[in-house]
């Protein structure tokens, strides 16, 4: 017992000392490694020129290489709305490229550089999709993009620095449209999301790919601009599928499609049809002998709170139901004839499918 402890502890101590000495040298090394990471990453970025140039829509964006033969991951946008787009590599070489696959739900597209007959085979520097990183709040990052179309020809794209502020779901909009991507994104403190920056690369300070810089978005609550990137962990697989030709566009994901997810019908509640952006959460009908009927819920009850979360619409209600787990208590506050009524129900076990 004590022998084991000794071994473990001395090894621990040695590791700590090693770490400490690494950190002592790291100040200088860090500056060098950041510089090395930048020059390592920049050749993997491309400038994309396509449709646009009218009504304030820029005709340029950014992408990054994900294969040696010229597959490029980029953002799905109006810039790609052309038969072919023009792609300029870091060394100034210009190629035509066409869209191989796209998934608007992910704001993702994959392009493939087209070679003419007299072009030799490409051997391009690229990001390895098998070696992407993940980040959490506080991770120091670099953002690479051709924002504002500053870089031309063989000029390298712009680099920004910052930290990940949060990894969270986007509550943001683009014009009056909501963001299609539903997963959690990296929110960063650098002003990465500028004109033409979408499709750029977010990396850690060592140059490991973390995410794809998103479009210019506004926070739907504060109306401030959001700087975010979609994690590569969500994009890697679809990109590989698009390259191999096995990608199938998914219909718009409906949370209700998830069989393990709770919805109001599990409690015998039927809500009014969700017809407008914020349909008030009125109960339409209650199934007889259901959990809801047992606690006395009635048609025309307006659901105000679910487990202390304010419910502004049928949609938000359905979202909140998604957080429930078997064994939880579901507490509803409803308004009925100008009175607030609180009811509680036990969340039933779901049958595994």
């Amino acid at each position, binding site marked *: 017992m004590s022998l084991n402890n000794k071994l473990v502890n*001395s090894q621990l101590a040695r590791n700590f000392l090693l770490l400490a000495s690494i950190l002592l040298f*790291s100040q200088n090394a860090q500056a060098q490694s950041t510089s090395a990471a930048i020059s390592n990453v920049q050749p993997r970025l491309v400038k994309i020129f396509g449709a646009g140039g009218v009504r304030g829509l820029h005709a340029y964006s950014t992408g990054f290489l994900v294969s040696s033969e010229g597959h490029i991951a980029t953002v799905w946008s109006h810039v790609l709305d052309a038969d072919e787009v023009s792609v300029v590599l870091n060394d100034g070489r210009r190629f035509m490229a066409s869209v191989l696959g796209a998934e608007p739900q992910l704001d993702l597209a994959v392009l493939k550089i087209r070679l003419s007959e007299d072009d030799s085979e490409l051997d391009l520097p690229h990001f390895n999709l098998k070696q992407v990183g993940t980040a959490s709040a506080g991770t120091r990052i670099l953002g690479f993009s051709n924002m504002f179309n500053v870089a031309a020809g063989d*000029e390298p794209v712009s680099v*920004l620095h910052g930290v990940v502020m949060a990894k969270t779901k986007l509550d943001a909009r683009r014009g009056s449209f909501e963001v299609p991507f539903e997963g959690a994104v990296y929110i960063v403190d650098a002003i990465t999301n500028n004109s033409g920056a979408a499709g750029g690369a977010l990396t850690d300070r060592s140059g490991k790919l973390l995410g794809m810089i998103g479009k210019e978005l506004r926070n739907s609550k504060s109306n401030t601009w959001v700087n975010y990137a979609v994690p590569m962990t969500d994009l890697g697989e679809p990109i590989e599928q698009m390259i191999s030709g096995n990608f199938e566009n998914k219909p718009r994901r409906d949370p209700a499609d998830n069989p393990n997810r709770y919805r109001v019908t599990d409690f015998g509640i039927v809500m009014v049809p969700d017809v407008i952006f914020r349909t008030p959460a009125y109960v339409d009908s209650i199934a007889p002998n259901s959990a809801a009927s047992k606690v006395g819920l009635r048609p025309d009850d307006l659901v105000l709170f679910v487990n202390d979360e304010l419910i502004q619409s049928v949609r938000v209600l359905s979202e909140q139901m998604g957080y429930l787990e078997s064994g939880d208590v579901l507490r509803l506050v409803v308004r009925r004839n100008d009175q607030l009524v609180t009811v509680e129900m036990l969340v039933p076990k779901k049958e595994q499918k």
Partner: protein
Amino acid sequence: MNRQLIFGLIAIIAWASFSQAADDVVINAQKRRIQVIKKVAPSVVAVFGRGNLGGGSGVIISPEGYALTNFHVIASSGAFMKCGLNDGVLYDAVIVGIDPTGDVAIIKLLGRDDFPVAKLGDSDQVKVGDWAYAMGNPFLLATDFQPTVTYGIVSGVHRYQPPAGNNFLEYTDCIQVDSSINPGNSGGPLFNDDGDLIGINGRGSFEKRGRVNSGAGYAISINQIQYFMDHLLSGRIVDHATLGATVATDNEGRVVVGGILEQAEAFRRGLRVDDEIVSFAGRTIRSTNQFKNILGIYPKGWKLPLVYRHEEERHEIFVRLRGLHRQSELTPKPRRRRGQPQPKPDQPKPQNPTNPHGADTGPPEKFKHMHVKKTGFANYYFNKLKQDKLLGGLTKLGDFSKVSGTWKLTGKRTADKAPVELTISSKGLGARLGEDYFVHAMNGEPFADEPAGSGGLLAAMHHWKLFMTQEADAFTEFYYLGSEPLDGQSPHVDVLISELTGNETRWYFHHKTGEFLGFDTQLIDDVDECEIRFKGLKAFDSRQLPAQLIIRNGGQVFAAVDLEAASLAAGTVKKKEAEKKAE
């Protein structure tokens, strides 16, 4: 049990040293930042224009108070402005020189000769990812003139930002940073991690987010400013340059000449349409943008090396760059006609809050003499200072003021020892080169290329004598131009310009020693000058003349002459003329 405790303790100590080490890195980096900021902050200037015309930032580069800022910061502030330093004192300042194309201005803070200065760095060494401090007075926040510091990294180097209107405010070969650049930062310094001045912050990419930092700020490189430094100190409105040719990228990705002016020196040296530009000013050309970048950092009139390929044959030439603008375009217009849209340059211009130090009290009485108006100049006062300094150095060669009579210079042609005689008088000019004789009667006829192929040796001799004996007064125009590399190479020389009846002469003085090295006289615009270079010195009585004159035209040596004797007659006629003029 005990042993476990000890091992536990070891782990704790190890952990403590680990966390201490981490702290040290952070603390040392912070200490370093504090030291750098402390070192450079005293040189950072808060600039306030007269009236409520906003303001910006600047940085002092000499103990006498010369400071760099943006042209657009002081464009509307008049000749005098107020400048705050972090000692809390508000100083008077006067305009010195402006570069509207490159958006640079030099002002001079007044009242001290021991101003704290920033050390100039080398912006060609700046790399993407380097730390960069932007300092200045964004939003005019600093009521105590303590500069605001924004810290970021270099996002790009050798960037090109197109002009904001009529070829003005063009940022070439500039530095892009993610350090916040906001309205009021304009004209302020960009320092590297060592606190060396690497650029002047001037604009940013602003679009839909309003006129605040959006992640891309641009600084004019300090190396460009270095090239223009003496031009700006000359008190002039300085101009940028054009090659006299346009370049384009052809199908094969080569940068080729798209069009060329027949008047351009590059054309006279052999450059033609479709020739490939290989290198310019010592830098290999890979793109059109890059060519524009390089061209943009040099002043009008500089001679620079150009390598081009014409039908597979490589040529190396030196070309003098033409001005980008006409003089009238550079002279600020007092008021824009109504209905003519004001160019809205893409740079921060402070609007709020209003400038509290701009009470329009007129120029301070004590410094009023330090501003002299003249067409083509931001402040002629500083030009006169430079002229006086260079001409003062000439007195080392002896007193030439009393020998305005006929000059007879005799010697031998270096190559074949053939006799050479040069006669320079106000009635006529003559030259004997071996068995060839050339004369020009001074009866108002324009000078010709005599001897043919010299570029106008007789005219050059005439100008030389006028310059030596009467100095500035003999010419219709006379001013200090700035500095440039002599013949596109070395040494670096200060240049005086004189004009007389359409002939322009450039006079060259060693930038460091003040030594008089030679001159170029041009008979008419857009032809090759007669270039005279001096070698050695020889005493004739109490005066010194060059031991050897090298006469060149279009870069080719026409003749070299070793001087053996000089008879410089006292002048009487000239003096009387001068007196008549004075009456």
